[in-house]
């Protein structure tokens, strides 16, 4: 059974059907990419899956359980985490604290233990701190740990978000344009990170406009246009699909061809 499955999901804003009857599924260890033109409904799809928006129709199943419209923190408890296209950083905290916040589910205990600083609470904090430092090292932000999060550059914030999302005991990870704002070399680093995470058995759902990256790491690609799924399949097949080329890829003159694969 697939870990995450989406069945006939749909939502509308005003008259606009932003997402319309979209279905697909993701298995553990698999990387599924959602691509499509700007405004196709990719982020909206993410928002419905992760409980930010309430879908108007359709179902989201996590591990077989119907979790449609569950609040994000309930989904987090069930192992879903995500990053945001429009960065959502805790600006009032340090980089390290941002990462520690990712461990919330593992470190939280009773308020009383926290108020009275009981040993249990202190130990959990300590563990989270250690874990967070490791994660920061993994995304290349070890040196920035004590800085205020607000002082990072865009690309660094992007990576901080990924670190925070990884901190959860994730089973399903939703990444919304993780490589935006990163150059080709940095993108490749993120590639590796994602592949590594997937290899550990996490189901990954990825939205990304960097086709090199998408083609390189996806097992499966879903193509949206105007909220509707217009194609689906292996990277190779999708990239040759004339509909996809017309709606999304265009004729590629800008990409250095030898960088493919």
């Amino acid at each position, binding site marked *: 059974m697939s870990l995450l499955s989406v069945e006939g999901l749909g939502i509308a804003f005003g008259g606009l059907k932003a997402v319309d009857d979209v279905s697909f599924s993701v298995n553990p260890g698999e990387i599924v990419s959602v691509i499509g033109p700007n405004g196709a409904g990719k*982020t909206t799809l993410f928002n419905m899956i992760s409980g*930010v928006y309430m879908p108007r129709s359709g179902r989201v199943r996590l591990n077989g359980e119907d979790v449609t419209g569950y609040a994000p923190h309930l989904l987090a408890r069930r192992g879903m985490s995500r990053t*945001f*296209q429009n960065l*959502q950083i805790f600006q009032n905290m340090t980089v390290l604290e941002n990462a520690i916040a990712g461990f919330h589910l593992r470190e939280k205990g009773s308020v009383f233990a926290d108020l009275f600083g009981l040993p249990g609470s202190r130990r959990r904090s300590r563990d989270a701190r250690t874990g967070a430092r490791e994660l920061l090292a993994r995304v290349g932000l070890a040196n920035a740990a004590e800085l205020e999060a607000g002082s990072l550059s865009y690309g660094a914030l992007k990576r901080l978000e990924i670190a925070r999302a990884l901190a959860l005991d994730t089973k399903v990870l939703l990444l919304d344009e993780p490589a935006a704002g990163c150059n080709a070399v940095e993108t490749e680093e993120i590639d590796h990170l994602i592949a590594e995470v997937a290899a550990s058995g996490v189901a990954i759902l990825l939205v990304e406009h960097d086709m090199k990256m998408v083609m390189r790491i996806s097992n499966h690609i879903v193509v949206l246009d105007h909220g509707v799924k217009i194609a689906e399949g292996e990277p190779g097949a999708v990239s040759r699909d004339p509909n996809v080329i017309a709606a999304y890829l265009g004729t590629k003159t800008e990409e250095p061809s030898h960088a493919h694969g």
Partner: protein
Amino acid sequence: MPELMQFLLSGVTVGAVYALVALGFTIIYNASDVVNFAQGEFVMLGGMITVFAFDAGLQLPLAALIAIALTAAIGVALNKLAIEPARGAPVVSLIIITIGASIFIRGVTQLVFDKQLHRFPAFTGDEPIRILAATILPQSLWVIAGAVVVFVALWLFFTRTLTGKAVLATSNNRLAAQLVGINTKWVMTLSFALSAAIGALAGVLVTPITLTSYDLGIALALKGFAAAMLGGMGNPKGALVGGLLLGLFEALTAGFISSQYKDAVAFIVILAVLFAMPQGLFGRNTVNRV
């Protein structure tokens, strides 16, 4: 029911006072996202300066004009000296600054003028006007008319003029506003001048009804704030409707339920409305995509 009619007239009178104060909040809020807690002091200044100018022998219209101009200047000074230097500070800090400013203005007023209650004559006499067995003072009509005129002017300003849009843009994204060539400092100056002038105008209109004294501002600011939030902060329509509704709730509660708890009932209604509509009746629903 003549009682009902009387309650309604009372509600509209008081509501128009609240609406005028609430309308004063809109411009500064729209330019900077700051609720200016010194708005009540502008109302007070409008009344007090008029009183003293009038007592000094000036014609009432002239006294009122001086009061409005002076208050606008004070508004500009407040912006230049206190708000502008604190640019970029978090909103709570700005709230504290405006509260500080209101205390300061109150303190100075009490030194420059006095701590007595004052009033000046109603514009068109005190002969009550009868409407369906109930009565209303002519000055109330002035207040209502004032609220409506200010509302229309503000509404046109924000929907029909580029300057109005520039004001909105400034609060929405100050950096971007500068990038498109908006002189955000000037926008702020303008906003404070206008807000203060509207406040002073309110003071001039309501003083014959409510009387004025150096410490009248707090109560008015609170009610005006509540009214503005009920209607939805930043929207002139909200300020007008919120003010009138608040006045009506109070009057009807005082009339039919309990005068002791009229303010309580008004607040409970506000809570209920906000519960159903967290942005107030006409508040803009900010979309922030993630």
